[in-house]
């Protein structure tokens, strides 16, 4: 079992964070310039989230399985969680297929500099939004198992 005991909790964490990132101009401006539409397919627990930067503002849509995405990213919720702490070796994760990306990969890689400030935001976001237990940069106590 992964770090998140259920999809509902993971959805609250990740969708809340994506919305925060989408409302942070230093990041959002560059994402919107890219016009990228990315679908994240998470497993363990399962969740689908679309981040749509094609319009005037970044839209985050959980459970959207119908929008045509430019890029599809698949990974476990644990990998996704660790990624936003800057703890995932992206190269290794892609080589070992712990992250699977489909679509124009160079366009995705170009977004890495844009999202870099988000790594510092994630632990703070967790602390400030009731998800302190998930902040693995601190002495981590796993949530009680279901």
């Amino acid at each position: 079992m992964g770090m998140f005991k259920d999809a509902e909790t993971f959805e609250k964490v990740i969708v809340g964070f994506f919305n925060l990132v989408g409302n942070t101009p230093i990041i959002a401006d560059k994402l919107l310039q890219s016009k990228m539409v990315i679908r994240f397919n998470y497993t363990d627990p399962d969740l689908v989230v679309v981040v749509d930067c094609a319009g005037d503002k970044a839209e985050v849509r959980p459970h959207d399985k119908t929008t045509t995405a430019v890029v599809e990213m698949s990974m476990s919720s644990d990998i996704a969680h660790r990624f936003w702490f800057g703890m995932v070796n992206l190269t290794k994760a892609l080589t070992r297929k712990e992250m699977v990306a489909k679509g124009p990969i160079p366009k995705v890689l170009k977004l890495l500099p844009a999202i870099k400030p988000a790594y510092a935001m994630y632990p703070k976001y967790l602390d400030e939004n009731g998800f302190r237990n998930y902040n693995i940069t601190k002495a981590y106590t796993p949530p009680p198992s279901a």
Partner: protein
Amino acid sequence: MTMGGYAGQILYVNLSSGEIKKKPLDREFARKYIGGLGFGTRIYLDLIKENPAFDALSASNPFVLMTGPLTGMKLNGVARWTVCSKSPLTGFWGDSNVGGFFGAYLKFAGYDGIVIAGKAQTPSYLFINDETVEIRNAESYWGQDVYTVTDALKENLKPETKRAGQVLAIGPAGENLVRFASLINNKGHAAGRTGMGAVWGSKLLKAIFVSGTGQPEVAQPEKLEELKAELKVIYAESIGISAIHATGTATHMDVGIIGGDIPIKNWQLTDWDEINEIGPGMIEEKIFAGHKTCYGCGVACKKNAEVKDGPFKMEKGPGPEYETIATFGCMCLNSSIESIAKANEICNRNGMDTITCGSTIAFAIECFENGLITEKDTDGIRLTWGNSEAIVKMTEKIARREGFGAVLAQGSLKAAEHIGGNAADFLTTVKGLEAPMHDPRSAHGYGLAYAISPRGACHEASLTFEAEGGTIFIPEIPELSSDLPEGSEGRAELNVAAQDYGMFFSNCAVFCNLGGMPLNATQAINLVNYVTGFDYTLEEVLAAGRRLWYLKRGLTNLFGARAKDDRLPRRLMTVLEEGPTEGSVPDMDRMLAEFYELRDFDSDGVPTKKVLDQVGLPDLAALLHQS
């Protein structure tokens, strides 16, 4: 069965006597040593073992260039070939691995490699046109930069050859004996590290021109075609290949910064506000001028650059790769991508290693900042962080060994001795070779890899960087596919496996570590088997790799390296207080102790007689254990 892949003969050239010999490639020798540095290192040891004490810039230092069995095949990631000699920069073992076209063309001419001994009396070049091999006068080319001599030789020799030729040349840096001078093929493919260009300069060898009309055979063409079809799908799905095709090795500027892999300000930082100014996005916007590739490779990870105007104007030509962008860029806090492209062009034209050159300038900037040198020492140049014009000017002065450039032309270790004070605190060298742009504080295995690399701090002396960094995944070898915990645990085992397999993969078979990254061991070995007709197993290639690794280690021991030289410089062992590598330094004592035991070294860092005998190197054992 046919021995495919190989051209079947090795060229021996003595520049002192003018003697040229062609010796057939022995089948058993080929099977045992595979090719590339497997051949080169064995031949080198045989040449010097009677009298191994000599200066790297003397006529007694042989130079060996060898291709691999796959060089010259139209396959992804196999255009590479190798050179080796004693390093004028470090005084220890030196070798370099390079792509481009020269190796393939040498095969077409009918040679697997060239062994060069002695020293010419006047500037010379070697002319190879199939069976015709001549030492020719190069006085009219001496002093020309690499681009000029490459164009001139190709043009002037065209009437004498049936097919267009390739040129491997040194520039003024090699002629001037800059200790980190390189050899350059096709203007941008550099045998960069350890100063092989200075070896040529000391021999008054300006260039080798080669043209050939042959083609190496494939022993099992049907099986090879089947495997190529399988690999076509794998390459199409590879994200790593897709990334380096799009933006080259500069891709790592965006990826490496996340985990703290990129050294900044002479290894004092892992983040910098201006990093994106020198990343792939800015390269595409400001200097990108098209894709380039090596012979037969569809990956095309090389990029051309052009700066149309301004102080760093440069014509369209080979652009800077990741290591160059980092050394001349963030290492010097230089955010001008145009100036980095210009510095790269200066290094290519003059034939200089960009890693050592950029790192040595970053070192000098820190010396300047700390008052160890002033404008009086630097010929009026203000060597300050981010001063892109000063960085470019100093690069030119180094190539010419002019003024303070002559001090830096010795490399940073010798420059530190010259400058004195606490200059050595700013060094990033192991065994005198400046570390590449991958921080061991982000991946501890790199630290051990740098420390025990026979040629000095190097990320390509084994496959440790690729395995721990994540670009390769070799499921057949547990150490190269396991998921190690953060820290130093298991890194000794990782290094041993990455050396043994790496010596086969990128030193003997001479696969490209970039273009060959999607290959697992089975595929890599099958490629070699189908081309050569041999029936190598994983065990056999690992044994060959292990033997080569001990050969290289033994040679560097023979040139004086001992346990005290297997250390990381203080700068790389300094704990950073913030950023992705905060608080992390490799546990070198632990890793070295484990590694020495695994490799059966004595406490002085020399492989025991027993292990050298075991791997089939009794002559090396006798040399190292004479007492």
